């Protein structure tokens, strides 16, 4: 059990981090679909920087900056120029996917054995890490894990417990009303998308920096899309996302361990588990979970239509 948790927790970090980035912009009405590309780009940038500079923290920070840049392009094209969010998102997903491979090939080139970096070191919290079963997986982790825990609590506090958070959420629910109250709709959408996209890229960078130590094309393997499903499932709320991410991470680890588990079923069918489970969960998510009313729609303050 403890062993299983040790595998699940890092994957939980990935899902939580990327999903918090997604709901941050989603709450202001920006439906970001660039995750799959931005995570790949984050992985590529994070690896290349860590490899060249020898600093994993540098890799994470520059991955954040590059992800933020993609978010900036997305937000300028959708809030300022009011282009379709989904279409721009797709185009940026393609561009980011291309750029990820391009950067790696350009800096590293094609090698027989891929270069490897040292993964992040783990820090132990005294006493707590001695708790049986959960102590080892929860309190002996790298700093990204602790950052994600703090981020989730902080986002929850900001969104659900502060006046500024209420204003922030109102932008995604009813931008026209928010605007009439003097809330700057475009500003809220801009910063939330920039920061959110940066967090998504850091989640991508976590793959080479925590799991593998190497970068490979396609290492995100659809998790960027699962993150969007997770945001819907979590009703675009920070704490629900934390819980949902645990489910997604558990499924992910089961899928990865398919060949070891056996069960008499061809391993490919167990590997399908994360995706099939998500599809099933979506049936309920779209029936019960709420989403920001103006998710995915641009705001034109000169339009006479509601919203």
């Amino acid at each position: 059990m403890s062993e299983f948790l040790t595998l699940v927790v890092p994957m939980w970090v990935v899902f939580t981090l990327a999903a918090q980035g997604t709901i941050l912009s989603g709450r202001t009405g920006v439906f970001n679909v660039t995750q799959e590309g931005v995570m790949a780009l984050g992985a590529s940038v994070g690896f290349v920087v860590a490899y060249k500079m020898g600093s994993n923290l540098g890799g994470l920070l520059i991955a954040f900056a590059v992800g933020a840049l993609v978010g900036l392009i997305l937000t300028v094209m959708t809030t300022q120029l009011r282009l379709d969010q989904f279409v721009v998102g797709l185009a940026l997903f393609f561009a980011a996917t291309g750029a990820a491979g391009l950067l790696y090939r350009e800096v590293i080139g094609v090698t027989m054995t891929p270069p490897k970096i040292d993964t992040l070191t783990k820090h132990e919290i005294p006493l707590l890490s001695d708790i049986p079963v959960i102590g080892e997986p929860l309190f002996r982790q790298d700093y990204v894990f602790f950052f994600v825990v703090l981020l989730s609590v902080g986002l929850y506090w900001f969104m659900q417990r502060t006046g500024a958070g209420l204003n922030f959420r109102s932008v995604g629910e009813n931008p026209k009303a928010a605007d009439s109250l003097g809330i700057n709709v475009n500003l809220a959408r801009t910063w939330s998308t920039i920061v959110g996209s940066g967090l998504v890229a850091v989640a991508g960078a976590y793959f080479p920096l925590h799991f593998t130590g190497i970068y490979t094309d396609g290492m995100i393997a659809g998790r960027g899309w699962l993150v969007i499903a997770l945001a819907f499932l979590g009703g675009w709320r920070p704490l629900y996302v934390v819980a949902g991410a645990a489910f997604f991470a558990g499924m992910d680890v089961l899928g990865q361990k398919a060949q070891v588990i056996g069960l008499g079923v061809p391993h490919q069918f167990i590997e399908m588990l994360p995706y099939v489970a998500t599809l099933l969960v979506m049936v309920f998510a779209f029936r019960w979970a709420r989403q920001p009313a103006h998710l995915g729609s641009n705001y034109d303050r000169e339009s006479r239509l509601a919203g």
Partner: protein
Amino acid sequence: MSTVEQTPPTPGSGGPPSAPAPREHGSGAVTGVAWTVLPYVASVVLAFLVGGLLIQAMGYSAVDALEAVLTSSFDSRFGMVETLHKWVPIVLCAYAFAIPLATGKFNIGAEGQLLLGATGGAAIGITFSDLPAILLLPAMLVAGVLAGALWAGIAAVLLVRFRVNEVLSTVLLNFVSFRLIDWVATSVWPDAGAGHPATTPVGDGARLPLIGEAPGLHSGVLLVLALAVFIAVGMRFTPTGFEMRAVGDNPRASLINGVKTSRLAGAGLVIGGGAAGLAGAIDVAGVQGRMLEGMQSNFLILGIIVGLMARGSMLALPFIAFGIAVLEFGAGTMQLVASVPVEMVLVIEALILLFLLLSDIVRNRLRGAA
């Protein structure tokens, strides 16, 4: 809770992006065409300019690289045949995206639908390998269409019956399909000698006849050409085509006027899946001769790019697909000649799309000023 809140987010506020820009001021046909074609030309030129600068900045020769990208399809018969062989899956995957888009739905699952179509086709081609071509070939192509349509049908049922966002369901089904075909290629009909997960070859009767001297062009190209005409006419002149476009333009008005909107949206996905499935079956029958892992290449992304660039015009779509096929064949040559990584072409294609989107704003500003 009202029904509006439960609907999956429809991206954008003003209907799908496929809606062609309205012609204003009763301007002449020539100006109309110019306003339509000019943004494409400008976007392509700008994207190549930016791409060229990037290539130069990376220390390669931009002229050599871009010349290879643009001309290698036309340099030899081999180049043209290969380009047309690439054109087939690209144009079919573009239909897989553009037909559901006409009803306002996004099919991001052409990859999985193509693989299922290839598997369905290969299953018939392997099981009945002794049948003569006159029976086997049509059966195989039909099986491919059905398998692709069935796979998209899962997303359609989830959408119509359970209101599950079709973007997510179609994408997730791609990843399920990768595992499924891996199982087919390693356990059901494995070819141990292939050195890569692949099925055993299909029977000779399941191969599309080749046209002309070697290297031959497979006849699937002609089939898709005929299909392209059929789709362009069908979307423009049949009641179903009209209803599909009406649902995309204004779902509410269509619903009030008695169009079964959600059923039509589901049908759009299924038809799109059939198109992608056909792409898979043709690739098996014409190019690969078997189903193998990775045969989906990057046709999903290319299909979406073409589908978005066509902006709802089923007439323009095959031509745009040809342009993209030229770039894609040229990408390989570029890497050989100028040693620029092939991903550069994907970046250029994404740039063309982004500039094309931006051109709307420029055009509206220009027209507003005029």
